[in-house]
């Protein structure tokens, strides 16, 4: 075992101890002057958002078209989740800190209160010197509807890497945006994607030029602060031929009694021989133990291995949100392309999760791998929904799927819903699934060795998730392990 790994384990225990009794540490709100439009959704609102961002006509047209289509669509009801009907006219679609009005020219001009918010969240928005041995991480921070700052841009630009807010990309790299926006998730793909296409306000944009290995981790941190505000961000990551990038997103929100909607779209495009690793640590406010409040996390994420030998890997640690509806997918279009999905989904108290992936094998000799670890505790419901689809022309396709569910207590539920469709006889598809419980004997064994019940659960669950945790970038593996412990608090005893 490496020293580094050893220090993570220590961290986990420290952290679990430190947060004992504390439920959601990101639940604070920031008192800040905001520019917020009236609730409601209409063509005027969309025109307002577009004008605010000084968008070109084609983008406004694109939004309006998405809106027209959205109006004809129905909210999906096939997921294993239950929540009251959302009144889309009672939501605010744009809120931005007032200090952003004139747009900060550099990070030095960012409102100190915002910087403090992010520092409370443990996200550095100053480009501080990093400790020896730790890789640099460039951050784009999205606060309610706008990006408040992106770090290390100059350094990245030296390699030709573009990393900026979506709004800036529209202004500065309109050709790239126009070429790739909606090319993976079409604007009318599904109800929430159409809504996002109409009203998205900001997000992150990233382009890695041919042959470039991005020199640092890129990350986006999303923060919903305003009450009654939806967050509709859009992320677009393009890895050109032979490029490589590792990208991470993290999410938090204040504790509020009412539910808040987060309907994001993430599009990844990997060209020939390119590789994108996309990791998510999702820790939106999950609501209280009786299910009051929390974020509705209705997200469309899809990656397109557009050319030969492209590789896209999704890793997600989902611990937050009241309701999660999310299926990061891969379109394996290029021959010999590879798609991966590694997921840890934890639900506690009254949380509901319906998550999984889709692997669409279109090219020849494409392969995919799905490792899903679902952990249910409290009175929560946790469903894995996955689709593996092999097109008639996709000869030599391979898939391996492993779905493991772990139950804690006797009031929670775990569901596994795999769809497998092979239209080419040469396909080799494997599916393994297990369901287990943490046994009283395992708990007692750990307790006899000095761990309290919660530390024991955190240790056992971290072990259960190991296959997935090891796919996270080092820096975030630590954070993820802590989260696993924290989000299961109160699940035993």
């Amino acid at each position, binding site marked *: *075992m490496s020293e580094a790994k*050893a220090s993570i384990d*220590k961290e986990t225990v420290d952290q679990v101890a430190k947060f004992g009794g504390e439920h959601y540490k990101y639940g604070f709100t920031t008192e800040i002057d905001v520019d917020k439009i009236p609730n409601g959704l209409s063509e005027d609102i969309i025109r307002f958002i577009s004008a605010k961002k000084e968008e070109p006509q084609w983008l406004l047209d694109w939004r309006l078209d998405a809106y027209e289509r959205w109006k004809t669509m129905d909210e999906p009801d096939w997921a294993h989740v239950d929540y009251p009907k959302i009144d889309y006219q009672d939501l605010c679609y744009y809120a931005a800190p007032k200090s952003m009005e004139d747009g900060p020219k550099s990070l030095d001009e960012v409102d100190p209160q915002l910087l403090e918010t992010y520092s409370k969240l443990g996200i550095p928005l100053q480009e501080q010197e990093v400790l020896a041995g730790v890789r640099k991480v460039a951050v784009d921070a999205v606060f309610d509807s706008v990006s408040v700052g992106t770090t290390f841009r100059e350094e990245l630009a030296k390699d030709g890497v573009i990393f900026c807010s979506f709004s800036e990309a529209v202004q500065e790299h309109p050709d790239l945006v126009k070429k790739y926006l909606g090319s993976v998730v079409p604007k009318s793909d599904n109800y929430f994607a159409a809504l996002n296409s109409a009203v998205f306000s900001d997000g992150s944009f990233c382009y890695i030029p041919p042959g470039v290995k991005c020199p640092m981790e890129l990350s986006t941190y999303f923060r919903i602060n305003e009450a009654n505000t939806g967050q509709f961000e859009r992320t677009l990551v393009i890895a050109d031929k032979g490029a490589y990038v590792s990208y991470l997103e993290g999410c938090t929100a204040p504790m509020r009694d009412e539910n808040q909607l987060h309907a994001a779209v993430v599009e990844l495009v990997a060209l020939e021989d390119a590789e994108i690793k996309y990791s998510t640590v999702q820790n939106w406010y999950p609501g209280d133990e009786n299910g009051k409040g929390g974020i509705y996390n209705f997200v469309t994420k899809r990656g397109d291995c557009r050319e030969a030998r492209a590789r896209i890997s999704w890793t997600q640690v989902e611990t937050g949100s009241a309701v999660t509806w999310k299926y990061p997918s891969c379109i394996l279009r290029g021959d010999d392309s590879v798609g991966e999905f590694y997921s840890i989904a934890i639900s506690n108290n009254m949380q509901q999760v319906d998550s999984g992936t889709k692997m669409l094998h279109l090219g020849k000799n494409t392969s995919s791998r799905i490792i899903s670890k679902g952990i249910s505790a409290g009175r929560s419901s946790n469903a894995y929904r996955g689709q593996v689809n092999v097109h008639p022309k996709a000869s030599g396709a391979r898939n391996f799927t492993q779905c493991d569910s772990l139950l804690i207590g006797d009031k929670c539920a775990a569901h596994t819903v795999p769809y497998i469709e092979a239209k080419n006889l040469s396909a080799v598809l494997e599916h393994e699934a297990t369901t287990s419980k943490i046994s009283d*004997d395992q708990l007692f064994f750990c*307790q*006899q*060795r*000095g761990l309290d019940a919660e530390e024991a659960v955190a*240790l*056992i669950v971290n072990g259960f998730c190991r296959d997935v945790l090891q796919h996270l970038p080092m820096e975030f593996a630590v954070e993820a392990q802590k989260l696993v412990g924290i989000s299961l608090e109160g699940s035993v005893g």
Partner: protein
Amino acid sequence: MSALLEIKNLHAGVDGTPILNGLSLAIQPGEVHAIMGPNGSGKSTLSYVLSGKDGYEVSDGDMLFDGRSLADMAPEERAIAGLFLAFQYPLEIPGVTNMTFLKTSLNAILRGRGEDEMDAASFLRLAREKSCGLGMNDDMLKRQLNVGFSGGEKKRNEILQMAMLEPKLAILDETDSGLDIDALKTVAEGVNALRAPDRGMLVITHYQRLLDFIKPDVVHVMAAGQIVKSGGPELALELEKSGYGEFVGEAVNA
């Protein structure tokens, strides 16, 4: 000198079924006691009651550990106080390496005692030293806790945990079961290396064989939830010849 462990008239059971019926026993620091007895006499129950396993109810009597009553202490509090149980059937925890488990355990106990946790380098050194002494290689530290371990490896691993945690009182629940003679010797050597003037041991076993390698100071015979006879090491040899028959009858008639 006050006793390290003093059990007074202990009555305990599971689901209302009495298993221990007025058991008394005292272990002084530095002593090794062996408890022998037929199946169903309550030997393992005693180990679970002492370590605080859920579901084992004490209805009467008391257990004093270092002068402190164990009755209201959670299992982890007992572990932190220095009570260690080597399990008859060590549990598997998939995905958690032996090393991680040892470290989490040791640090939880140090923290519980208000001491500083051990840094990664010192821990690694200590773990290597202790495992080497038990004839375990580095590879075993990297493997997942007890997953795919042979019976002998699991038992050796229990002794490794004991060596790392250095408890005041070690209870060994049928540590010899399922071991071949070589594994038995290694385990016994590990246990003997831990004998110390301030440490007590309670060795629960079915067979005299283990006591050839771990020499007890006192041997107790347990039947029907009571100690029915106590004596020196010679008592174990006697039992080997005559069996438990007479004691079983005695306890039932008592």
